[in-house]
């Protein structure tokens, strides 16, 4: 039984990929459990697509091993791996009808025409494209093309479906619709999906396992809730958004808490858990935007612990909450998502000075980034 339960496992051991002098993937190890939905998340050039293509067999690792269902797939051609790749451009064959596109794999395997058309029609039904079976790809919209590409990949009966930026070519409405449809399909089929994306909401909405990548390495691989609420490093916190990343230098620590010197004379008290930083060591931590208390700063207000004073730069009404942007001494934008009612009870406006404060137990301690410089503020892509 364990054999069949693990047939869709994907395991990477110390996988490295070089393109000439460029290191695209740097000793990545990762285990994607059978029948899970995994998202590889990161900015363009972080190596996520290269990993997908190596699993698919369109690239060979420079070193390291890839196992699918416990079997080393080195040297196996794509079709022998039990994977199917859905291309970002869909790559539907322009000279074949929708039905013939879907039936392509069966035709290559020599399945008789009638049988392969029957199978193709069954797949088209699964993706609700029956009415378009006789059309040519050029006559379909982007969303329809994607469904056909999906049916064409699924007809191979893969253990692992690999999706390269599947939603990036669609408009906002279709993207949300297809997103839930992908999740439905994955649950219904009970196979492993590996989905490459640079869009944070897509990853956390879909994935059982979110793999956050940066410069060819994995910053964090965990559940969606874990990477969002408990990011491992400043990079993850910034990329996933929803957090303010703050740095302070250790002034003092008592084994349970540390007192940090922040920018502009601010003082932060953070819970240490297992960490024992030395005095003077820089420590990063994150505070969720929605767990911050915002108050109008009084004249000559004494700056308390765990607070930052700043100038209100922007106020955006978002419906259920109000997003306030502060310019503080950290040098980075400081964002507060205040519940609508709380905001309008004592509103602030652009140009006001405001005080943002939080409870020490709502602070989440971060480890340094694995790749690149520790606290580069240029990585706020998904803010």
């Amino acid at each position, binding site marked *: 039984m364990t054999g069949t339960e693990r047939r869709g496992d994907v395991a990477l051991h110390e996988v490295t990929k070089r393109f000439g002098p460029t290191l695209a993937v740097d000793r990545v190890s990762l285990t994607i459990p059978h029948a899970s939905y995994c998202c590889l998340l990161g900015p363009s050039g972080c190596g996520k697509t290269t990993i997908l293509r190596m699993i*698919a*067999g*369109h690239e060979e690792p420079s070193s390291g091993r890839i196992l699918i269902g416990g079997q080393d797939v080195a040297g196996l*051609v*794509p*079709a022998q791996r039990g*994977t*199917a*790749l859905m*291309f*970002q*451009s869909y*790559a539907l*064959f*322009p*000279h074949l009808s929708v*039905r013939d596109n879907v039936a*392509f*794999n069966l*035709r*290559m*395997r020599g399945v008789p025409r009638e049988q392969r058309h029957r199978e193709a*029609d069954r797949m088209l039904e699964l993706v609700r494209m*029956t*009415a*378009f*079976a*006789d*059309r*040519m*790809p*050029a*006559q379909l919209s982007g969303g329809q093309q994607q469904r056909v590409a999906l049916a*064409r*990949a699924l007809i*191979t009966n893969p253990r692992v479906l690999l999706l390269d930026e599947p939603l990036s070519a669609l408009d906002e409405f279709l993207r949300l619709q297809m997103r839930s449809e992908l999740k439905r399909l994955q649950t219904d089929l009970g196979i492993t999906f590996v989905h490459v994306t640079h869009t944070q909401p897509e990853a956390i909405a879909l994935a059982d396992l979110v793999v956050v990548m940066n410069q060819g390495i994995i910053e964090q691989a965990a559940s969606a809730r874990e990477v969002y609420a408990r990011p491992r490093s400043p990079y993850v916190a910034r990329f996933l958004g929803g957090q303010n990343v703050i740095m302070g230098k250790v002034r003092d620590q008592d084994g349970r808490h540390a007192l940090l010197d922040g920018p502009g004379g601010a003082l932060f008290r953070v819970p240490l858990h297992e960490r024992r930083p030395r005095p003077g060591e820089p420590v990063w931590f994150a505070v969720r935007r929605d767990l911050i208390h915002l108050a109008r700063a009084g004249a000559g207000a004494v700056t308390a612990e765990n607070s930052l004073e700043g100038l209100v730069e922007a106020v955006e009404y978002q419906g259920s909450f109000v997003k306030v942007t502060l310019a503080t001494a950290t040098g980075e934008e400081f964002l507060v998502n205040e519940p609508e009612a709380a905001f309008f009870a004592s509103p602030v406006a652009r140009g006001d000075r405001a005080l943002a404060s939080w409870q020490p137990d709502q602070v989440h301690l971060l480890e340094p980034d694995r790749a690149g410089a520790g606290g580069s503020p240029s990585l706020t892509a998904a803010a």
Partner: protein
Amino acid sequence: MTVGPQGRRPLSFWILTAVFVLFVLFLYGPMSAIYILSFQGPTGGLTFPMRGVSLHWFGALFGQQRTGDFSGSFARSIILALIVMALTLVISLAAGLAFRQRFRGATLIFYAAIASLVMPGLFVGLGIALVCQVLGITPRWWLTGLGAHLTWTLPFGLLIMFAVFNRFDRSYEEAARDLGASDRQVLTAVILPILAPGLIAVALFGFTLSYDEVARSTLTVGARNTMPLEIYAMTNNVTSPALFALGTVTTAISFLAIAVALLTIARITRRRGTGPVRAADPAGAPS
């Protein structure tokens, strides 16, 4: 189109129109004279006026007479053009596929192949003839003539294949491989059908360039002329409208080749729905 405030066209419009009309007249006027005169009556001569209208001179072409070896040269030209077409197609496709990989000397080979486009054709022919003389090979249309034609058609074929592959998305190949296609199936089931319009264009070039080649042929076809050379010879000694009839026939064949090629390409693009938009029935019943 720019139209003046009172609906009057600017002067530039009339100048450009005049240039265009002159161009068209220059292009088609002399040709038309030849086509018209080829229908000259049996008693007519090489110049206007027409003395009646007939197909007499077309008949004279195929009859055994002083007009030279028309049927023979025509057959040779068609056979040679077909062989050149097939070889150009196969070699250009193979070269196009090869040049997608970066290999040592790729640039050098490319320029070496293209250089024969700019070399004067007459001297290419002369060179081939000289070398053959040294090697003791008798020039023949299907041997040295074929080689000479390929020096002309292959660079064209290669350039077209470059343009074709430039627009070819390699993810089609990867998708095919992902879906279980072998190398051979990738070629036959995906690359060739997708590239079909470009391949037809290469074939068309191969055929027409060979069919009316003169410069490289004169010294390389040997004792038996291809048709353009036969026509050239005829202009010196034939003094009847049969010459014009020959011009009309050969032009018609060129146009036929082009029409067949273009219609085939149009058919392919229409089938793929990439051509002019046509309404497709969304509820089309599966056949």
